[in-house]
Each structure stands twice: as structure tokens, then as C-alpha cells.
């Protein structure tokens, strides 16, 4: 643990940063942000919304003043093969008088009007910061509306201040559990059928994985929540296995589904060649069917043979390049470290907004000596370590992009704004392509010359 100079950090932050090899020390994570920091973190509502939003035929109604609905209007690039109701923005738009007299009536009215207009089978009602404070009984309003319209109206307890984004994931999982229904351990499980948890179908990623699994003889029952819809989610208990990609948001749901429906779960990662192949093998091995295992090896061979030479050609271009990673959850950080290794890029800094203790341990095992590991970093820290470690590329989300550019550092969006699928074998090639297009762009030449000289 290196002590940070005062201008870069405060005492409270020092336990959230470690440098591998300097000292054996447990990184502190999963704590509240320090007040007054430029945190890159979001809130409970944000976490709940990102998990549930990809459900395409649901009506997502945000109960609160307008902001929370407008900032989340169609910002997540999760694709749909059918309905597109989820791409609208619905808000009760609470006004001053609602704050004083309560917003329950307006909420009930909003649900009535919207249900009449759009005829959805499923409505999620998101609670925002002030809902609990003004005393609205979300539960009761939703229950009454549900009875009135004979559809599912599910409250999402996502008041912004009750925790961080992880608490929002949990609130979303609770809403999903309500939708799926009560415990039933004796129900019928379809053979060779999985639920795919924690893929939000950004740029169509879930479709790629679904396709791989279909090729080896496994059906995806429903994806949580990419391109999911009401019917498919309702049938979730019929799968015989849950596979989890984004562990941060979905482990809790998988555990509950194990308790409720006796569905076992395994963790997978379809990011990078190595992880994709390993995960496919893991799923095949679970079912133990020899045909399935053979098909899996065939698929891996075919796909790998197709992309390996492309990856190798990029590898040469990337020799000596260093990357910094700052993403939402630990799962993604871990996969990216491995994926960068595949394309010959060393990760010199890695951080997450909401990584867990066990994930940070894995990260620490994976990275080289001297790599900076940090939780809930602020821009000043990101800048300091990117410069210190000589990173050529930053992987992050919306807010990190211009920061990287200003430093003359290339950038890869591994968040909502990604435009190409980064999953599976094809995703590994896309990642290499995207890294190349930013890392090796001629625009950086104009910077290095240092202006008009």
C-alpha cells in the first residue's frame, strides 16, 4: 500500500487502493463513497433500472420527479427481437403539490392510463429517492392496480439513497423473483435447457451466446434480462441449469432460484477466447452428455480456428501496450484482464465501482506485480495512476471516456455505449478491432507534436 500524496487523496480513500506486491493488505471495498468525492458511482435506482430495463415488453414506470426517468430513457443499448415498449420513458413527473400531498393517486392514475393505452402484461414501478420520504405506499398502489387490471404490477424498491448500485441489483432481483412466482421445488425441468443470467444483450451479445449453445445442443430458456419478455421470464423455473455471466448483479437471483426451484447454477464468462471456451466446456460438462461434449469441442475448434489468426495479427500490433480498466463490476474486470492478456496487452491499473471482496482477490491473483487495484475511484486517482503506469488505453464507461481522451489515452467503451458485441469468439475479434481502431488512430499524432511549435 503506497501512501497517496494529500493532493490526490484523502485518508478515507487510502484503504480502497492497493498496489500488488507492495504489501499484503486487504483492499476495502463495498463501502459507502466518501462525501465530497467525484465518485463515478451511481445509485440504487440506477442499478435496478439497468438490470430490469432490457425486459422488452414491460412498461417501466418511474415514480418520482422527472429526472430519474429522463436520464434513463433508452440509454442502454440492449437489443430486442420483439417488443420495444421498454425504449419509452414513463414518469409520474411528481410536482410540488404531489410531494406535499403524496403521489399515490397520481401513480394509480398513471398506471391506469398507461395500461389502458399500451396493454402490457407487466409493469415495473420504480421507487425513487423521495417516495419513501413522502410516505407513498408503493406496495399497496401496485397491488391494487394489479388486481384492477389483472396484470403484474411489481414495485421496485429502488430509492436512490438506500445503498449503492449493488443494492439496486438486489432490488431488481427481488422484483424478478416476484414475477417468477413462489417456491416450487417439484416442478418439471426441461432437459438441456439453461437460463442465462447477467447478459443484457448489449449490441446483441446474448444472441451470440444463445447461438453457440444452440449449436452444441443446449436451449436457452430465458436470458436475464437481455431481450427477455414477460412470458419467457414466467417460464424461468423450467430450466435445468442457471448459468451466470454478470455475477455482481445475478448471483443473488441464482441462489434464490436454487432455493425456490432447485435449479443449480454455475458461473460463466463469455468474454475472451479462453473464458468463452472454458465456459462452454463447463456448461457441457454439467450435463455430461457425450454428444454434447463432442459438439462443444467441435464448436470451439471451428470458432477458435477462425478467429485465432486475426487475434494473432492484432497481438503483434499491440506489443508493449498497457491498459487501464475501470468498470462497474468485478466480473467484467476479471474477464478483461484475461482478455487483454490474450491480445498481448498488460493491464496496469484495474478498478471497479462495486466489486466484491472475493472478486478483488481474484483480480489480485491475476495481475502482474505493481498493478494498481482500486475500488470506487475518482477521476483524480484514475488520472494519477494512468499517467504513473503509462497506460495507453482506458476501458470504462461514459464518464471516463473524455477523461482518457484529454490525457491522450485511447478509450474502449465496455459499458452501455458499446456499439459492437464483445462476447464470445466473435466478440474477442471485435474487442481487438476496437482496441486497434482507438489505440492506433492517427489522431494521437497531432497531440504528440505538442501543438504549434
Amino acid at each position, binding site marked *: 500500500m503506497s501512501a497517496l500524496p494529500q*493532493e490526490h487523496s*484523502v485518508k478515507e480513500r487510502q484503504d480502497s487502493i492497493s498496489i500488488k506486491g507492495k504489501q499484503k493488505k486487504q483492499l476495502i471495498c463495498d463501502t459507502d*463513497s*466518501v*462525501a*465530497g*468525492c*467525484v*465518485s463515478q*458511482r*451511481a*445509485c*440504487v435506482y440506477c442499478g435496478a433500472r439497468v438490470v430490469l430495463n432490457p425486459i422488452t415488453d414491460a412498461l417501466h*414506470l418511474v415514480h418520482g*420527479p*422527472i*429526472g*430519474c*426517468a*429522463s*436520464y*434513463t430513457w433508452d440509454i442502454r443499448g440492449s437489443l430486442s427481437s420483439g417488443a420495444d*415498449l421498454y425504449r*419509452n*420513458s*414513463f*414518469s*409520474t*413527473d*411528481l*410536482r*410540488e403539490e404531489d*410531494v406535499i400531498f403524496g403521489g399515490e393517486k*397520481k*401513480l*394509480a392514475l398513471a*398506471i391506469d*392510463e*398507461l395500461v389502458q393505452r399500451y396493454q402490457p402484461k407487466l409493469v415495473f414501478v420504480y421507487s*425513487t*429517492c*423521495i417516495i419513501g*420520504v*413522502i410516505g407513498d405506499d408503493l406496495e399497496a398502489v401496485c397491488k391494487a392496480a394489479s388486481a384492477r387490471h389483472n396484470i403484474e404490477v411489481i414495485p421496485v424498491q429502488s430509492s*436512490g*439513497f438506500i*445503498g449503492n448500485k449493488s443494492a439496486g441489483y438486489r432490488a431488481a432481483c427481488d422484483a424478478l423473483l416476484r414475477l417468477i412466482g413462489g417456491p416450487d421445488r417439484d416442478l418439471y425441468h426441461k432437459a438441456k435447457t439453461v437460463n442465462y443470467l447477467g447478459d443484457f444483450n448489449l449490441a446483441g451479445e446474448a444472441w451470440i451466446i444463445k447461438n453457440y449453445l444452440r449449436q452444441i445442443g443446449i436451449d436457452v430458456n430465458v436470458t436475464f434480462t437481455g431481450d427477455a419478455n414477460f412470458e419467457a421470464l414466467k417460464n424461468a423455473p423450467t430450466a435445468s441449469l442457471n448459468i451466470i455471466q454478470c455475477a455482481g448483479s445475478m448471483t443473488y437471483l441464482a441462489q434464490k432460484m436454487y432455493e425456490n426451484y432447485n435449479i443449480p447454477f454455475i458461473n460463466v464468462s463469455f468474454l475472451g477466447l479462453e473464458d468463452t471456451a472454458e465456459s462452454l466446456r463447463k456448461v457441457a460438462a454439467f450435463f455430461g452428455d457425450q454428444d454434447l461434449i463432442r459438439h462443444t469441442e467441435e464448436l470451439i475448434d471451428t470458432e477458435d480456428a477462425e478467429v485465432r489468426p486475426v487475434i494473432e495479427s492484432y497481438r503483434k500490433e499491440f506489443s508493449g501496450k498497457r491498459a487501464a480498466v475501470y468498470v462497474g463490476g468485478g466480473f467484467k474486470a476479471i474477464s478483461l484482464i484475461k482478455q487483454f492478456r490474450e491480445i498481448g496487452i498488460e493491464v496496469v491499473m484495474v478498478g471497479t465501482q462495486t466489486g466484491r471482496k472475493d472478486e478483488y482477490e481474484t483480480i489480485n491473483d491475476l495481475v502482474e506485480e505493481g498493478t494498481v487495484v482500486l475500488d470506487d475511484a*475518482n*477521476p*483524480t486517482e484514475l*488520472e494519477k495512476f494512468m499517467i504513473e503506469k503509462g497506460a495507453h488505453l482506458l476501458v470504462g464507461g*461514459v*464518464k471516463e471516456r*473524455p477523461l482518457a*481522451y*484529454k*490525457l*491522450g489515452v485511447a478509450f474502449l467503451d465496455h459499458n452501455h455505449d458499446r456499439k459492437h458485441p464483445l462476447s464470445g469468439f466473435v466478440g474477442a475479434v471485435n474487442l481487438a478491432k476496437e482496441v486497434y481502431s482507438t489505440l492506433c488512430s492517427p489522431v494521437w499524432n*497531432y*497531440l504528440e507534436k505538442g501543438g504549434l511549435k
Partner: protein
Amino acid sequence: MLNHTPKEIQERKGGLINPAKTCQPIGAMYAALGIHKCLPHSHGSQGCCSYHRMHLTRHFRDPIMASTSSFTEGASVFGGGANLKTAIKNVFAIYNPDVMAIHTTCLTETIGDDIPSYLGQSEVPEGKIVIHANTPSYAGSHVTGFSNMVKGMVNYLSEATTEVKKEQVNIIPGFVNPGDMREIKRLVRVMGINYIMFPDTSGVVDSPMTGKFEMFPRGGTTVPELKDTGNSRLTLALGSFASTDAAIQLERKCKVPAKSLKAPVGVKATDEFLIALRNSFVKEIPYELEEERGQLVDIMTDTHYHFHGKKVAIFGDPDIVIALTEFILSLGMIPVHVLTGTPGSAFEKEIKAMLLEAGLKGNVKAAGDLFEFHQWIKNEPVDLIIGNTYGKYIARAEDIPFIRVGFPILDRSVHSYLPIVGYKGAMRLVEMISNALLDRQDRDAADEDFELVM
């Protein structure tokens, strides 16, 4: 969404579908970025701050820095005093801005956090300044939040210290892009008049690439300038929704006469802006600006037949939409649907008066949403839609040419660097409008009607 909107209009009372506004705090954050070396601070949950920074980052494609009180359950029960005090300590210890500009959120307003009393109990390092504005998200819109923060600047900083007012003008530019602010400043400079523009986000959210990340880029109105606004001879508030309140406050506090004008979009509004400056400060408007105006009018006459009688639907922030509607009318186009998400009857009054004067009728609404706007268009189709990025859904559904003006623009770049204000800005608007209309004509033309010269 992509086309869910029914044509039949029914009364709705349960909130908004596809809003044409967002909440106050983001406007306050944007205004505060227009103070030199200022860190905006969001007093509320950290999601608010994160969303505002994300939205502004997407619009400006520049780093947007702001801190948050990071509310927890405890803070919302016991009040946010402790969080705010810690935040103030940390902000100056870590980031060391000259100014910390606090705005509230719906949460902190609802639990009744009293910011001034918290500030009284906080330790602010010597020479540093903390200002604040109340920005409840459940009232007004992002434009109101902008206005409130600008008023906060006056409340905390403006001082009348000279006996005789200085020969300088205060200009409050409104919620516009840094490219607009640069253009407004250029116009005043060409007029040869000393000025203080506040807030001024140019040089902050359009900062150049240097290979260094500057937490506080060079731009922004400085604290001495903000103080000196109390000594100016006149304040011009450009836009009644975003700027007038602060100008009136400055008149009240420091006896600086306030004059409220339209946002200088289009010939007439730019004329009025320059004439107001001339009337108070100089004998005549320099030829350079006469020439620009003449060029604009020349362009308008060269191209008027492209525009005449075309129907237009306009939505966005009230000050911009009001001025834009006036300009659209001056081109011979017909604004048939005009809408803002921001509440305020003055908007409807002003637009209706313009339409009446032109002998036209149209749908006009404040506090509306894009669902309704789309319904209007379904009922009376138009040739062009003007608005922010969210208009693209309607433009696609109805296959109507669309130009992006206003905030936010999330799917195109460079817009924040180039003005829509002044004669140059009007030229740019004419170019955008005619390109959109003529591109469409080219696209739809049969081979025999496809023309080289248009």
C-alpha cells in the same frame, strides 16, 4: 416507442410519456461549470450526480466534474448536515477549487435540509467560496435549475462597490452551448463594449486537447468578475426563463438596471440584442456587424423559396424555442407545433402572440411531453422537426427531416462548438434547415426530377 403513439388525443393526468425536460439539478450543475475553477456539488444521492455528469458528458463530449454528498439512509433520516460538512472539507482538501457551488436535489429538498445553516456551521478554507442554490427537482425543469444557480451567483457574489457604475455590461447568456457563449462575447467585443458574461462555460466544457487533464480548465467567469457584476451599468438577460430572475435579483441587490431580451437567435432577436447594447453604450453598430447582418439577409433572400410555406414542428427549451419560432416565421415557414417541457404560461403567451401576428394558428404548449408532440404531428404532419436528440424517434416514425438544436444532443458531435446565436448562428441554422429539406427532396426525387441545381 418506435411507433406506439396513437393519433387520437385523450386527456392524460398521470405524468409524462417521453419527456421534453429534465430536472433542475443538471441545469444548476451546468451553470456552475461556468464559474472559473468551480466544482459543482450535488447535495443528494450519488446517482443524481452520476446521471447529470453522464448526460452532460454525452452532450459536450468533455469531462464534467462534480462532487456529491453521497447520501445514505442515515443522512436521509437525520438530515444531510454531516454529509455536507464532510463534503466541503473533502472538496477543498482533494480538489481545491476556488468555488464550490452546491445545488440541492429532490431528496434534500423534501427532507428539508437547510443549506445556509449548514454552511454557517462549516469550515471553508480562507479565500475559498461556497455558494448554493435550491433546485428541487419536482418544480420547473433543468432550465429553472440553471436560472436558480445563476441567481445564486448574484446572491452570494455580486457587490456594488463603486459610486458610479462602470461602463460595462453584464450578459447572462442562458442555457446555451459554449459555442453560443463565445459568439455572444465576440459580438460584444466587436461592438467595443466592456462586458462580464456569467455564467460562461466556454473554455470549460469545450476545452482544447493538450494531453493533460485539467480538473479546472481555463474558462469560466472569475470570482472578481462575478463580484464586479454589481458595478456594471446594465444587465442583459438573454432569455426570460433562464436569465431574467438573476438579472432582476442583481437589480434589486446592486441597482444594476436589468433588461430582458430574447435569446439572440435569428435576425430580429440579434438586432434587438445589438440595438440594446448600442442604445446604452455606443453611438453606432460597427460595419463588421452590419456586413454580417447583410450577408445573413442575403442568404435568406437567396434561399427563401426553399422554405416558403413549409410546416415546422419545434420543441426544446423555452428561451431557445421562442427565438427560434420567431426566426422560422421570418423565413416564411409555418410553425404548426411548438412545445416545451418546461412549465410556464409565458411561453404559450409569447408563441401565440407571434403566431397571431403572422395570421397563423398552431398547437402551442408548455409543460408538454414528446408523446403529445408526436400526436400533434400525426394529426397534422410537418415538413421539418427541430429539437434535441429525442426528436429522432418521431422523425423516424413519421419519416420527417429533422435538425438537432438545443439540449441534449447525444447522437451528434461538434454542435456545442458552433453557435446558433447571432447572425453567424442564424446562417448556420439556415444551412442546417435547407440541407435537411433539400437532402430529403433529393432522396425522394424520381430520376427525371433529380436536379443538379437547386
